[in-house]
């Protein structure tokens, strides 16, 4: 990793790490009366000092040769894949835990940090930002270089983005365990973490712009439109929704500059577009590269891609208010949210259809290749959950579904069925390319992972559909006296079996992810072993593996 940096980049790293260490010290000093800020200061200081020692220890390594400039820079992608799988296992494990907590509330073991309110954001942020975010960074850097035929502009900034982003994730997750939160869903980290993410994100965007500027292809490929939309819009959303005033500079706690219904509207404008641009646009970028690559088919329709892209980016911006139907939000805002959500179905299904039609002529591969099947099922779940989303945005439907487990089921149809499946499919295609192997360590385990993931998703989603609709109906049923027929406790008792089923579904999905992490780890070991054999020279009676800069299909 570090020997790939030039001497001037190593110097730059030391300067940046020094500044980071100063920030950490400042946080420790400012937060001495406030546990959380001080604790985070120690984390920042520890990470920057650790990395500083690492850089110093490799400081006098020989500089990378000029030949590197004729190759793509994939080290950050490799690290990103590993980080994504680590977060996947952590985030999904906590997910199974919080699911179990709903069925068996005593599993907090009387520890404050293990209460539902603290663990849940660790789960949501762990899987969305930890797993999803690292997967997006890793794949976007890979796709960007391949489709631009240009190497990343330098070796320092991708590492800054990757490590900086993971530092943000660590500060976020550890903050929740200490009870720190802005109380905004998916935007829980406090002000200093938010500021840090802005810096990281701007560098990320600049990598994209600087690489595209130097591209050797006349056109910018669709995947890059989506990755760019993801980076740009997430920056805008993140900055606006997190505008807040800290209680003081020595305090972790801050208060949003928005209040009341404006606060709610800004939050759900953010929240829904986080779904749109983080969990949809970014992963569509992934789909647009790895699916046609693996299927070895041309994209079904370029024109459909254009309509879908602009339809999705334009329409999603309006849809957030459908999270606030029948609330204090003025009805006209709800109308706009609902109607744009309905129109949004068309470009969403056009994207899913474009992906599935691309597989025409390659369905035999879908049947035989679990990696491609992951991507196909992802496109199907993308279609299912976008239909469901538009449907639930209709006010009359929402009056039944809102506040129930149906919403949770919907989110997981998207998160497990679409986001995680497309990521796993892409990783299984990408890992052998990145580590110069002909295939994954075990294609059988890919197949095992696929069925665990699919079974887990189906069990989870069906449990939540049942639970949500029963819940919604129980809450609105009246008896002959004209009063509510069921108490809230009655609805909880009715939910119990579904909560157990959901835990089982989630556990299946987690087992699949663990199998996947193992398979990837073993593939990396396989690559290391091959490298050792290669370096051992001709003594070893094995044919020399072909180690080219790029291999066929990549």
């Amino acid at each position, binding site marked *: 990793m570090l020997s790939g940096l030039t001497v001037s980049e190593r110097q730059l790293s030391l300067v940046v790490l020094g500044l980071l260490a100063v920030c950490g010290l400042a946080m420790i000093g400012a937060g001495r009366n406030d546990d959380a800020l001080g604790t985070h200061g120690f984390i920042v200081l520890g990470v920057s000092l650790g990395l500083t020692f690492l850089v110093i220890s490799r400081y006098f390594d020989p500089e990378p040769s000029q030949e590197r400039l004729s190759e793509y820079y994939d080290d950050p992608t490799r690290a990103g894949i590993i980080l994504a799988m680590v977060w996947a296992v952590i985030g999904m494990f906590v997910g199974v835990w919080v699911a179990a907590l709903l069925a068996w509330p005593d599993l907090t073991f009387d520890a404050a940090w293990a209460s539902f309110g603290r663990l849940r954001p660790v789960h949501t942020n762990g899987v969305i930002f930890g797993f999803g975010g690292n997967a997006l960074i890793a794949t976007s850097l890979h796709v960007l270089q391949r489709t631009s035929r240009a190497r990343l502009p330098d070796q320092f900034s991708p590492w800054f983005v990757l490590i900086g982003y993971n530092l943000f994730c660590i500060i976020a997750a550890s903050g929740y365990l200490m009870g720190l939160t802005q109380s905004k869903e998916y935007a829980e980290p406090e002000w200093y973490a938010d500021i840090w993410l802005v810096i990281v994100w701007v560098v990320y965007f600049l990598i994209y712009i600087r690489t595209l500027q130097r591209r050797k292809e006349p056109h910018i490929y669709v995947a890059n439109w989506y990755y760019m939309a993801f980076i740009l819009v997430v920056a805008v959303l993140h900055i606006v929704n997190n505008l807040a005033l800290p209680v003081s500079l020595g305090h972790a706690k801050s208060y949003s500059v928005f209040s009341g219904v404006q606060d709610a509207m800004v939050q759900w404008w953010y929240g829904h577009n986080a779904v749109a641009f983080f969990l949809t646009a970014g992963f569509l970028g992934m789909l647009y590269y790895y699916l046609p690559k693996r299927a070895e088919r041309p994209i079904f329709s370029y024109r459909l891609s254009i309509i879908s892209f602009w339809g999705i980016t334009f329409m999603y911006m309006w849809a957030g208010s459908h999270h606030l139907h029948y609330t204090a939000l003025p009805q006209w805002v709800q109308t706009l949210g609902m109607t744009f959500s309905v*129109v949004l179905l068309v470009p969403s299904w*056009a994207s899913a*259809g474009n992906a599935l039609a691309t597989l025409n002529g390659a369905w035999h591969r879908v049947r035989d290749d679990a990696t491609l099947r992951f991507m196909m099922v992802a496109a199907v779940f993308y279609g299912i959950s976008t239909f469901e989303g538009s449907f639930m945005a209709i006010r009359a439907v929402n009056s039944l579904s809102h506040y129930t487990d149906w919403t949770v089921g919907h989110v997981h149809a998207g998160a497990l069925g679409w986001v995680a499946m497309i990521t796993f499919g892409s990783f299984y295609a990408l890992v052998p390319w990145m580590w110069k192997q002909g295939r994954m360590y075990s294609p059988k385990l890919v197949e095992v992972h696929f069925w665990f993931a699919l079974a887990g998703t189906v069990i989870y989603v069906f449990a939540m559909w049942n639970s949500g609709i029963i819940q919604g109906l129980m809450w609105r049923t009246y008896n002959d006296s004209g009063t509510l027929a069921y108490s809230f406790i009655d609805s909880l008792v009715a939910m119990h079996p579904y909560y157990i089923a959901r835990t089982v579904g989630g556990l299946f999905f987690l087992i699949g992810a663990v199998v996947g992490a193992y398979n990837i780890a073993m593939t990396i070991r396989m690559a290391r072993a091959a490298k050792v054999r290669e370096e051992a020279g001709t003594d070893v009676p094995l044919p020399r593996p072909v180690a080219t800069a790029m291999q066929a299909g990549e």
Partner: protein
Amino acid sequence: MELGERDPVTGRHTTGHEWNGIEELETPVPRVVLFFLAATTLFAIGYWILMPAWPLGVSYTKGLLGFDQREVVTRQVRDAAFARAAWTDRIARASFEEIAADPTLMRHVREAGRTLFADNCAVCHGVKGTGGPGFPNLAAGAWLWGGDPATIAETIRIGINSTHEGTRVSQMMAFGRDGVLTGQQVLNVGAYVRSLSGQSLSEAERGRLAAGKEVFAANCVVCHGDNGKGKHDVGAPDLTDQFWIYGGDVQSVHTTIYGGRQGYMPHWQDRLSPVETKLLTLYVLTLGDRQ
């Protein structure tokens, strides 16, 4: 547009661009996509014309239907209250005895009271009203402040040791911790208290009974009465029955005498209407029926 090669599977040309092996076909946008794009857009426009939709500075387009969610919900709440008034008015007017004697009204009490109780009271008293450690059993007929309907209704209204200015106040002193009684005296009176409800005592406890009785007479009778039957005006429990709020075993009784007890029940005046309080009172009184 300059076209590329023909794709043998679909028969379409590619667009002529290629990114690391990925190509795109120039397939036109399928008609069905354009149709649904038009259909959903028309639906949206129609909805905007009929419903409140677009902002106009300080106001907004009201829509031809004149639909307003605030008016709708206000009307629905009013209509529902009106429909219920058929029986709630009778509950409001009638006395407790009259309601209890009317099977139709009692059916409403059981129906509406069950959810009202589960949503407001069950968290402490349990879904069946049987209480739990620290929370009295309402199905036992062992009333701290009196079991007639008017008294129960008043307890619900003002609460116990609550923030209501007229709250019922009940406090058992921490006889051991505050040094009113010595350790031995606490042990003695604990044995005596347990004997009042006819519990089987150990040999050691039986030896403490006489001394315990003296301690009881000097310290406890003010609230619990000469015979330990309790007093409703101070909310002191009957010590001779089988119902224990904090437990009747040796350890629990000792803890209670040593550290005292201050039960807490919130007041419901600001939360429940007079009719709902009346409903709950009557419902609570039916809890014992099932025992």
